[in-house]
């Protein structure tokens, strides 16, 4: 039933946009351009909740003629994890994730099409995703409509267990609208539906249940997840150019899924150029979500339901993020092929507080341990050049 419903939604969205795109008045108004030629080299570091992740990211984009633009991406995450899940149920570990991607943009009759392929590879998780999107600028370039579709296939294994092998498939459907409202303001509206099918849990994590026979009062068993999930997200973004050269932006996103999770996030940002070469950014983000139907920190008995999970990402929690960024523009004369470049430094402080996930490493009576919370720092240092 859910699948039939979902397919109908996509069909309706596709037909509506195809009809609109065919309207006579929509012609001769597009002015879509290829993305800028630029390259970015970034070092990123995440440190919080017992998890450290760092590594480089590289992206290069170049146009070929007047119709094509190609880009290539490469990123490495070196992960060292001693998170509360890992410490309570297993041993700390280290691993590496490598992500590679290629993308082609094609401009034809003022229509921009994009095809991209991304591969993400870990020792126990291989993910391959293909995406396609079409963009139109219309109505005197005041409106941009984009339709996008992605399909992904994941292969999941378990380190130390040769017999374990599962798969998951994922499809994303995106519709977005960018609208110029006034000469100083712009709006973005994004809708995305994602469907998953297959093994959607973790091969390592366990749920916790009350066990009078255990010394601690509880025991663990491997989690059990539903094999399908459909989620919907709707985001509204606004950006406003202030009376002096600076920009104010706001974002709100509503999310829900078939696992019973509802989430909301709100973000505000302020961008302030200083003299000719500096740009400062500050931002604040608030996120909140309700738990999944099959989540519990402590189940009442050994196997009370078909699906049971104790993943804190499925619990009820909220987070605050405060971020700061600075960018310094350069125009090097000695590299003639470079138009300009920028050095950038970005810092985010995040604080996550859980309402029904307890820190069992602290000990105490089962089900009455202190609620878990943690903070994290995220640093991004990168260099961008345009040519």
């Amino acid at each position: 039933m859910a699948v039939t419903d979902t397919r109908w939604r996509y069909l309706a969205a596709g037909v509506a946009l195809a009809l609109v795109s065919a309207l006579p008045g929509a012609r001769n108004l597009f002015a879509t351009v290829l993305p800028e030629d630029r390259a970015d080299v970034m070092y990123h570091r995440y440190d919080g909740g017992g998890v450290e992740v760092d590594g480089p990211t590289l992206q290069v984009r170049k146009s070929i003629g007047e119709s094509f633009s190609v880009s290539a991406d490469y990123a490495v995450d070196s992960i060292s994890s001693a998170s509360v899940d890992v410490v309570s149920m297993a041993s700390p570990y280290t691993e590496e994730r490598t992500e590679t991607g290629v993308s082609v943009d094609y401009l034809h009759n003022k229509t921009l099409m994009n095809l991209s392929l991304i591969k993400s590879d870990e020792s126990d998780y291989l993910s391959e995703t293909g995406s396609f999107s079409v963009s139109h600028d219309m109505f005197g370039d005041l409106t941009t409509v984009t339709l996008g579709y992605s399909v992904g296939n994941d292969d999941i294994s378990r380190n130390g267990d040769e017999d374990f092998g599962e798969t998951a498939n994922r499809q994303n459907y995106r519709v977005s609208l960018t609208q110029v409202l006034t000469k100083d303001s712009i709006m973005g509206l994004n809708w995305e539906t994602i469907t998953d099918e297959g093994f959607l849990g973790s091969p390592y994590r366990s749920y916790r249940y009350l066990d009078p026979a255990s010394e601690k009062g509880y025991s663990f068993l491997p989690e059990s997840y539903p094999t399908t999930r459909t989620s919907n997200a709707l985001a509204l973004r606004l950006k406003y150019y202030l009376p002096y050269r600076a920009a104010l932006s706001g974002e709100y996103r509503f999310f829900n899924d078939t696992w019973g999770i509802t989430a909301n996030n709100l973000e505000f940002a302020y961008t302030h150029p200083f003299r000719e070469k500096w740009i400062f950014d500050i931002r604040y983000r608030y996120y909140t979500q309700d738990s999944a139907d099959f989540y519990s920190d402590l189940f009442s008995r050994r196997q009370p339901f078909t699906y049971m999970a104790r993943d804190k990402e499925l619990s009820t929690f909220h987070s605050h993020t405060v971020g700061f960024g600075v960018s310094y523009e350069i125009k090097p004369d000695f590299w003639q092929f470079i138009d300009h470049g920028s050095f950038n430094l970005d810092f985010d402080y995040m604080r996550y507080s859980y309402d029904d996930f307890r820190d069992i490493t602290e000990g105490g009576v089962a089900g009455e341990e202190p609620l878990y919370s943690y903070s994290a720092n995220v640093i991004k240092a990168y260099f961008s050049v345009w040519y």
Partner: protein
Amino acid sequence: MIMKLPSPPLKALLCALAALMLGGCSIEPWVKPYERAHLADPIMSFDRNPVANGYRNHVYQIRESARGAEGGGGGGCGCN
């Protein structure tokens, strides 16, 4: 196979989108090209630094259940 109508939020979104576009066919652009200097300023871009934004979305996707409609970036990784 029984086909159901789209859910109310999606119906509303599609209607709004279609109405906006239909209305636009007869409307002169209310912001003229020569009035778009502020909009063309890089500080007005929703995705001024795509690589950094992509990583920021990735960090959130791993730690939160909500996903999608980020407006760029992101990738297919199930790493928890």
